């Protein structure tokens, strides 16, 4: 009593005491659940209480496979695990490894044992799962002919696809003979040939659902060549056949939705494809028409007719040029001619005569240009502007003259 302990030391001391206690290390506690909290981390915090008191409990996320139902306040449960100290708060609590509902406890043990056995046999293995075909023409249903499940399945299946053939095997789903009835139903429908099979029933207590936890039912589902959708109870209920089935549906209604495709949306999808094809085809045609128009334009441009027209145009052009050139030449020649006329006019003999020159010819009419052409006594004819004069040569004399022009 002389030495003062630290808080940590005393908590650790107590913790060690708990840890060494055989009973506390492996204990099952029965009580009523209260303050049950599912934490987002996956841990579950709750208390167990009875009329005398309470104990804090926790189930860590890693242990959650030990809890097969949705635990809630007020549930009477047996919690198996260990009691140890949470040193930080100086509290002890029950660390749960497995939680079972009281009453269902025995059945639940059986369930877990069978589940483990079948799992080890590989009956839950994904490689055995068959795909659910998209188009289901014949839908088999193994369930009770009375009750909501069959009506739910019928309503939803036919609403989604009124053309689906539903074949019900009216089975006993609970009580004496239920498992045999369900097995027979699965086998009968498998033999009759359906595209997919729904096996299930509506909600109920664990005892009510028990037939779906029977090994022979699980085997029948496993051996069934038709894909099987299990649909037992409500969302939170899990039975053995849910693990064996090719697909697990949370409820019978959901099973019908999973099994039967919605024809309206299917038709709509087909319609969309059809419209798309039409539109694409129209586009192709329009493109081709445009290409054709362009090619046509090019062909027309090189057609003989067009070539002829072009040559004709060229010809016209040449002809115009020719005419123009001719006209030009003509005008030029004409101008030159006028020039000559003008010039000639200037050189006209008459004009010379009028300026006092005369034109002299001999008897024979030859032009006299030299004294050597005549001798005295010859007769000559002298032309002037308004007539001629006949004269006789009296004498002649040669004069040296410089030539001009």
């Amino acid at each position: 009593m002389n030495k003062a302990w630290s808080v940590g030391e005393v908590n650790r001391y107590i913790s060690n005491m708990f840890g060494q206690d055989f009973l506390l290390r492996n204990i099952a506690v029965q009580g009523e659940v209260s303050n049950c909290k599912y934490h987002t981390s996956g841990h579950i915090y709750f208390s167990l209480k009875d009329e005398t008191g309470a104990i804090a409990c926790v189930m860590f996320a890693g242990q959650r496979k030990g809890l097969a139902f949705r635990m809630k306040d007020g549930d009477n449960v047996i919690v198996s695990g260990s009691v140890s100290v949470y040193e930080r708060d100086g509290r002890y609590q029950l660390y749960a490894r497995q939680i079972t509902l009281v009453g269902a406890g025995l059945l639940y043990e059986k369930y877990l044992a069978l589940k483990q056995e079948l799992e080890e046999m590989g009956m839950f293995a994904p490689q055995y799962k068959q795909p659910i075909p998209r188009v289901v023409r014949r839908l088999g249903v193994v369930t009770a002919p009375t009750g909501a499940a069959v009506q739910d399945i019928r309503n939803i299946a036919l609403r989604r696809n009124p053309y689906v053939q539903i074949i019900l095997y009216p089975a006993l789903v609970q009580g004496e003979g239920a498992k045999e009835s369900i097995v027979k139903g699965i086998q009968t429908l498998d033999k009759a040939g359906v595209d997919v099979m729904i096996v299930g029933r509506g909600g109920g207590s664990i005892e009510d659902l028990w037939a779906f936890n029977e090994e022979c039912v699980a085997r029948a589902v496993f051996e069934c060549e038709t894909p099987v959708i299990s649909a037992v109870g409500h969302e939170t209920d899990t039975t053995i056949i849910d693990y064996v089935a090719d697909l697990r549906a949370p409820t019978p209604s959901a099973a019908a939705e999973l099994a039967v495709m919605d024809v309206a949306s299917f038709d709509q999808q087909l319609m969309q494809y059809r419209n798309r094809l039409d539109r694409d085809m129209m586009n192709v045609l329009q493109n081709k028409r445009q290409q054709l128009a362009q090619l046509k334009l090019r062909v027309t441009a090189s057609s003989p007719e067009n070539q002829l027209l072009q040559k004709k145009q060229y010809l016209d052009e040449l002809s115009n040029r020719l005419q123009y050139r001719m006209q030009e030449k003509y005008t030029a020649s004409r101008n030159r001619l006028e020039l000559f006329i003008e010039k000639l006019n200037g050189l006209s003999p008459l004009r010379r005569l009028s300026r006092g020159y005369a034109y002299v010819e001999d008897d024979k009419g030859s032009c006299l240009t030299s004294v050597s052409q005549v001798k005295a006594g010859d007769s000559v004819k002298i032309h002037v502007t308004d007539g001629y004069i006949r004269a006789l040569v009296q004498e002649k004399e040669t004069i040296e003259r410089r030539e001009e022009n």
Partner: protein
Amino acid sequence: MQEQEKKEPTLEENFSQLEQVIRNLENREISLEDSFKEYQKGMQLIKSCSETIDRVEKKMLKISENGEYSEF
């Protein structure tokens, strides 16, 4: 069931073929002849998809242990 699936293409296969047809049609280089072929193929695929559902409404049946059908 599995053997049957091998014989006739599943809806998914038909749909993916349809997508391919549409891709081909949307290729601007496609010839007119091929485009007609693709279009025809597409329409045929749509038809066979549609024919996977036999359009007759059916009454729900029940089957007995002996495999005999009766109306439910």
